[in-house]
């Protein structure tokens, strides 16, 4: 299973390295999203700092959806999906591999978004440990959930519109828990641990679900 995972992750990352889609398109998008949100509020620092955590997480959610789009469009065409299934890879391995590659990309995006939040939204994080923990767990949770659901969405053409509506409701908890955890990390409330726990549960549940369900999904 693990070597299959490594194999698949290697393939995805190589293809990303060759096309640099995440780097050139997804990262700018996430920054852009942050700017757009401030337009929604109007430039009023107070309100901004209040909703900064939420904006961070919404931006991350949308960015993660784009990243998933790309990662799944590697097996976009029906023919590619089928012949990949004929290779006899361990489904759990495939799942873990794609999730791994996606997590790697998400972490990069998160780092940049955190930078954005600090600079653009004037947020000063007190509790960095909390920050890092929630980011890491969120990345795993988001990646697992999106890959699992995204693979349900079928070919490229359908997915580009179907994926968001499939995945967003599922990852809503990440949004909530994440924003709360950030609020805690900023220091205005103290119950960060609980929300990190939620994120952890989410991450575990969906990676396990993926490992278990990816096999049956491959079945016809």
């Amino acid at each position, binding site marked *: 299973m693990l070597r299959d995972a490594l194999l698949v992750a290697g393939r995805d990352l190589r293809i990303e390295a060759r096309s*640099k889609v995440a780097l*050139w*398109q997804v990262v*700018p998008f996430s*920054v*852009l999203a942050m*700017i757009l949100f*401030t*337009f929604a509020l*109007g*430039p*009023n*620092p*107070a309100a*901004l700092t209040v909703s900064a955590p939420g904006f961070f997480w919404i931006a991350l959610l949308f960015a993660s959806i784009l990243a998933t789009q790309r990662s799944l469009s590697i097996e976009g065409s029906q023919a590619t999906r089928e012949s990949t299934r004929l290779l006899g890879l361990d489904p759990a391995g495939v799942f873990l591999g794609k999730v791994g590659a996606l997590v790697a990309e998400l972490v990069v995006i998160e780092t940049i978004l955190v930078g954005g939040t600090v*600079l*653009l939204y*004037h947020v000063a994080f007190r509790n960095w440990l909390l920050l890092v923990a929630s980011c890491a767990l969120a990345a795993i949770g988001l990646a697992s959930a999106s890959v699992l659901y995204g693979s349900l969405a079928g070919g490229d053409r359908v997915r580009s519109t179907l994926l968001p509506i499939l995945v967003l409701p599922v990852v809503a908890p990440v949004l909530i828990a994440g924003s709360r955890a950030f609020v805690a990390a900023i220091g205005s409330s103290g119950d960060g641990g609980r929300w990190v726990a939620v994120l952890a549960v989410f991450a575990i549940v969906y990676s396990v679900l993926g490992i278990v369900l990816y096999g049956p999904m491959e079945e016809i």
Partner: protein
Amino acid sequence: MRHTLSKLLGPISAVLVILTIWLGLFVTPPDVDQGELVRLVYIHPALAVEALYASVGMAALCSALYLWPRTRSMRMDRLAASAIEVGVVFNILTLVTGSIWGRPTWGVWWTWDARLTSTALLLVLSLGYLALRRVPAEPHVRARRCAIAAIVAAVNVPIIHFSVVWWQTLHQGCTAICPGLTYKIHGSMGWTLLLSFVAFTTCFAWMVVSRYRIDVLRDSGHDGALDDALEARRSEGVPS
């Protein structure tokens, strides 16, 4: 002639920039209320103007010239691309110097001042253009796409600027000052400021030209390479 000029461009701009910095740092007096910080005024505005107007304007012009059948040539495409690319560099520098300036003056690295916001948006716009350039396509197709993208971007700059200005000024609770109007300009400062604009404009021109040169060299290398490629391609036919 054009050749020698563009050759001279490098040294000239270097000299001018150094001169600006020297004047800015050692000759001109510090500002009454801004102190030494005011010296950023000899860098930042010039950078900003290049980033905002020079690069986008030039790119749009070249792109339009490319789309116009009479003046269509890969040169225009390359020039536009170089302008945007250098523009991105200047844009980032504007943001950096601006933020450095903003930290002490406003107490924050960033504020949603109209100008700042539109600068940031412009940066993303240019990044989009560069991303589009990376999409693999036949040279002509890519040139056309990018030309259109550049024109659209240029048309968009004023729209963004005004809407952002109105949005910002019309919104209550905006704390951002409108930079630049906060202090009076002494004689020596005025001259240096003027010089700085000249210096960075030449600098911009020089960077664009050399970026363009690199492109041309690469492709002329590829023209040589094209002949080799043609040879190789033809020899594919010969059964070995």
